[in-house]
């Protein structure tokens, strides 16, 4: 035994200095990158905050509940735009999450032959590669005319609901919501599919072996197991939807008045900033920066909320 260990000891040599310094160098690089990411985030927040300061001083929290945007009288309030951002993203999620999840399930299970699956995955990811401005033009020339009869129908039969009470014109909250849904669909599908595929096959086999049907397995075993990945996908998608600018600004109608109807023109914070920023000066520019900070805050709150959901579900499912 001593002979074996002394042989083993003779073969274990101390690591060479180049190897050690390479290792150290790699640690430094990763450290710098990690600090860099956090630093960039902090830097952006600070710069925007400094520019927003005059508006913060002048309007304070009233900015968040005022519903006028008047550059002539320098009276700014961002409430309709906050409402527009949240509602358009919500519509997008309501449409994209069920469809995305369904696509993910179909693409991770073996309902379709493998070749069809591969092509579908590729096409889905291609949707994510289309530039935002192209979506915007497609929205103006294809989607809005397509939605017009639907909106007219909604207004005719459900006009008594405040949600559909205005006469449809074309551009509006619904059009923006649908376009956002199409834009975030690939994100949800790709991430959900990856997390569903990453569920260990033991779980799948175990579920089948105790007699569950295919759909019981999917809903009771696979989706809870992949839940954190699916929610991560949804959160990423929501983040994109909240901040999406060019596609939304071309189809949402750029109307700064608050309107509860989904088929009336509206505005989002990102769309407001892109329309007015390049020519704004003084307090208007500051107000736009303040609006940007508000968007930042909304995204942060939504992400924290998502983390809480994931944690709660993990606690629940691991009991």
């Amino acid at each position, binding site marked *: *035994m*001593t002979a074996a*260990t002394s042989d083993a*000891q003779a073969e274990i040599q101390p690591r060479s200095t180049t190897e050690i310094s390479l290792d*150290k160098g790699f*640690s*430094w690089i990763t*450290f*710098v990158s990690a*600090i*860099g990411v956090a*630093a960039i985030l902090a830097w952006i927040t600070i710069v925007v905050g400094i520019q927003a300061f005059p508006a913060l001083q002048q309007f304070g929290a009233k900015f968040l509940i005022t519903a*006028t*945007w*008047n*550059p*002539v*009288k320098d009276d700014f309030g961002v409430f309709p735009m906050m409402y527009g951002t949240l509602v358009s993203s919500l519509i997008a999620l309501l449409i994209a999450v069920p469809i995305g999840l369904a696509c993910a399930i179909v693409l991770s299970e073996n309902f379709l032959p493998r070749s069809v699956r591969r092509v579908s995955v590729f096409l889905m990811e291609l949707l994510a590669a289309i530039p935002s401005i192209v979506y915007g033009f497609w929205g*103006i*020339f294809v989607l*809005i*005319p397509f939605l017009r009869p639907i909106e007219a129908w909604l207004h005719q039969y459900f006009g008594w609901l405040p949600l559909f009470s205005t*006469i449809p*014109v*074309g*551009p509006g909250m619904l059009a923006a919501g649908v376009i956002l849904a199409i834009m975030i669909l690939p994100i949800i599908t790709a991430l959900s599919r990856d997390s569903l595929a990453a569920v260990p096959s033991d779980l799948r086999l175990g579920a089948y072996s105790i007699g569950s049907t295919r759909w019981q397995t999917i809903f009771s075993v696979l989706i809870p197991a992949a839940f954190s990945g699916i929610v991560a996908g949804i959160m990423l998608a929501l983040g994109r939807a909240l901040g999406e600018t060019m596609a939304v*600004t*071309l189809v949402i*109608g*750029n*109307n*700064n008045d608050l309107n509860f109807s989904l088929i009336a*023109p509206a505005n989002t914070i990102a769309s407001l900033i892109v*329309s*007015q920023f*390049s*020519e*704004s*000066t003084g307090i208007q520019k500051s107000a736009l920066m303040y609006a940007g900070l508000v968007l930042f805050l909304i995204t942060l709150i939504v992400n924290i909320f998502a983390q809480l959901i994931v944690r709660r579900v993990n606690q629940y499912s691991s009991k």
Partner: protein
Amino acid sequence: MRTQLRPIRRSPFRQIFFISLVLLSLVVTSCMGSSNAKDANVTIIGSGGTFPAPLYQRWFSEYNKQKPNIQVSYQAVGSGAGVEQFTTGTVDFGASDTAMKDEEIKKVKQGVIMLPMTAGNIVLAYHFPNAKSGLQLSRQALADIFLGKVKTWNDPAIAKLNPGVDLPDSPITVIHRSEGSGTTDVFTKFLSKISPEWKEQVGEGKAVSWVVGLGGKGNAGVAAQIQQIDGAIGYVEYVYAREAKIPIAKLENKAGKYIEPTTESATKALDTAKLPENLRVFITDPDGEESYPLVTYTWMMVYKKYDDATKANTLKEVLNWALTDGRKFNEELGYIPLPPEALAKVKKAINQIQA
């Protein structure tokens, strides 16, 4: 068997942390240094309103065909953005359909020369089934449409002005600009002049708080929206309405006549206003029986003093060419060429550009 344990060293993370910070700050500071690339060619950049964009871009591309080493690029981002970029020095010249105000001029330390390069009509374009050009809109009706008081096309206010026209019972959708625009400024100045209610409720400016309607991006965006939406009406520069083949309204001028926007009616309006020394005049609601009421000069703003002599001289060459040889493109594209008196004044002003 005894295992050789390496002594555990103190965590090196502290030194890694500080060295990483130093590296990061070095990277950042080195990125902030700018590099200048000097070309043999002359490149001049400008930005401004969408109103004159088709003309300017045509001028510059034609000039480039003649002299390939001189490249002038013009970005149509909106008059507001153009003025802002010109003030901060991001571009070599700006363009705006509404001349810079005195306070804005004071902010530019190199001094500003405003050059009216051309003029154009702002027209009211609309879209409803079987619409033809020539719908007559009175001053009151126009203001009421944009104030949201006239809500349908067959409202008596419009119907009584257009006896033979088949107006539908559909709602009017007003289209305005979503971003800061010189076209908006001129239009709202006109509305403020003809309607005290508008003046009080909304006022004038490159961007205002509109009472009704939805926004399009740029003159092109508004034209696209008017084309797409049944029942829409909006204000665009004449060239855009002509390109999109949208029917155009006749507006009531100060003398009470309904005038169609043409080169002649625009020139009559321009003639009523003399260009003062600083070449800045707003032709809001001109006199004259045959004047079209919504005409505006559109200005190019250049610095009085340029740091780069080549750039200054090249710019002078280009501008002089545009006003002489380039005049034929005005007619072709539908812009109004400068009247001779104005032309002489502008040429004199161009010579004031110093290197």
